[in-house]
């Protein structure tokens, strides 16, 4: 109501197809995928298992599901689409009447453990951006650092791990830009994650993983956390926003991103007190 922010879902696929933030629209899709973790005897580097310390995918990325069931809920304060991708991946895509972002609130787990290889779950946001193999991450938690696929600024890189060799820490934000359209897309995460932009116009973030074999780097146990006797279930959010980087709008993406970051990292505290008198007396 107060902000011109919305999204569209394709009723056949159940996936998001377009987003609108502060009156600016663009096509965007989002889906969940997984990598299988490499399993080896750890004797030489090429046989190193994917584990707590290292991410070594085995084979190509795979979609987490073939179809998505979804339920829209539309109200005066929030509107959301609840999506169920499979038995261990669900999500609510949510907007509210006062904020300039779209929230992706995911619930992942328990991941399957009945296979040889662990699963490493990622989410991908795909746009038509021409991002020239370049993206930005706040890996040191202080400033946005420029990243280029298959490139290091101080030496000639021979990439032997095309996926994990391009993954970087994302402390609270990852962005891509389209210099021709003067657009910037940002995903703010509520916890540190690994992320990349392996293809132009895409942002990929890893949000959950289990590795059924130790990587022999020191932890001495498989990464297969449990809670209440089952594999760990995690819940968290990504906040997606975008806008024009030139001055055609009053609020630039940097302004909106800083506003969201402040509100999320220094979130307000909510306390509950029993009402011991009548509401009138309390007032």
């Amino acid at each position, binding site marked *: 109501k107060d902000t011109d922010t919305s999204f569209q879902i394709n009723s056949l696929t159940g996936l998001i197809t377009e987003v609108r933030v502060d009156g600016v629209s663009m096509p965007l899709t989002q889906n969940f995928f997984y990598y299988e973790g490499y399993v080896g005897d750890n004797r030489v580097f090429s046989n190193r298992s994917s584990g707590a310390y290292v991410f070594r995918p085995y084979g190509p990325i795979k979609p987490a599901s073939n179809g998505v069931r979804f339920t829209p809920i539309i109200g005066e304060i929030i509107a959301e689409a609840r999506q169920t991708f499979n038995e261990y991946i669900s999500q609510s895509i949510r907007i509210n009447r006062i904020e300039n972002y779209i929230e992706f609130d995911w619930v992942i787990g328990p991941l399957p453990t009945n296979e040889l290889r662990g699963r490493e779950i990622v989410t991908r946001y795909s746009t038509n951006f021409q991002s020239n193999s370049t993206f930005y991450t706040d890996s040191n938690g202080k400033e946005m650092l420029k990243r280029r696929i298959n490139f290091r600024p101080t030496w000639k890189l021979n990439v032997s791990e095309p996926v994990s060799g391009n993954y970087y820490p994302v402390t609270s934000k990852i962005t891509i830009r389209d210099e021709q359209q003067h657009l910037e897309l940002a995903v703010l995460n509520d916890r540190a994650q690994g992320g990349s932009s392996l293809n132009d116009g895409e942002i990929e973030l890893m949000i959950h993983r289990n590795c059924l074999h130790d990587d022999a780097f020191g932890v001495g*146990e498989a990464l297969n956390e449990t809670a209440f006797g089952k594999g760990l279930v995690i819940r968290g959010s990504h906040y997606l926003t975008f806008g024009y980087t030139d001055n055609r709008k009053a609020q630039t993406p940097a302004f909106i991103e800083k506003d969201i970051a402040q509100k999320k990292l220094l979130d307000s505290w909510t306390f509950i007190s029993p009402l011991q008198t009548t509401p009138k007396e*309390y007032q």
Partner: protein
Amino acid sequence: RIDLNALREAMGVMQHHDAVTGTEKQHVANDYARLLQRGIEECEIISNAALNKLTNGTTNSSSHNPEESVQPFYHCPLANISQCASTENLDNFVVTIYNPLSRSIDKVINIPVVGGSYNVTDSKGVAVLTQLVPIADFVINIPGRSSNATYDLYFVATAIPALGFKSYIVSKTKSKNNDYNSEETSNRISI
């Protein structure tokens, strides 16, 4: 200051690189959770004292009037899975929102409740817009969740002052007697 020490020490322990990246062993992860929980519980003592001073309008201990009522301020550490013992079991309660930023903000507040109909009024007694949304099945079924809450109650807290607070009174009602009474969002379609 003593009440802050447990969390201070826990945060000191958690500068270790295994705590930062999550590469600690499982039993160490469990111990980190124990340390953090204990630290946060001790900080509740000081946040309760501070909020009582703020809400009673006193700013230092010398001006504290012993006859002023001491009000408990509970927080809901499991609100992220729509579970809160206080809001689920009370028909009438006060929601106090403290804003730690140095500027005024608006915020969408989300509280797990058992369902029905609710009135939310601000400090002047003016009813605010609310929305009741059924909690998603995939949240209700999270292992370890133990809650009677089946709905999330949403309302917008407006103009929470910088480094200040705002309180709202939530009351469960039997009848829907005004436009701002919350009721379940009706246009819910499964596709």
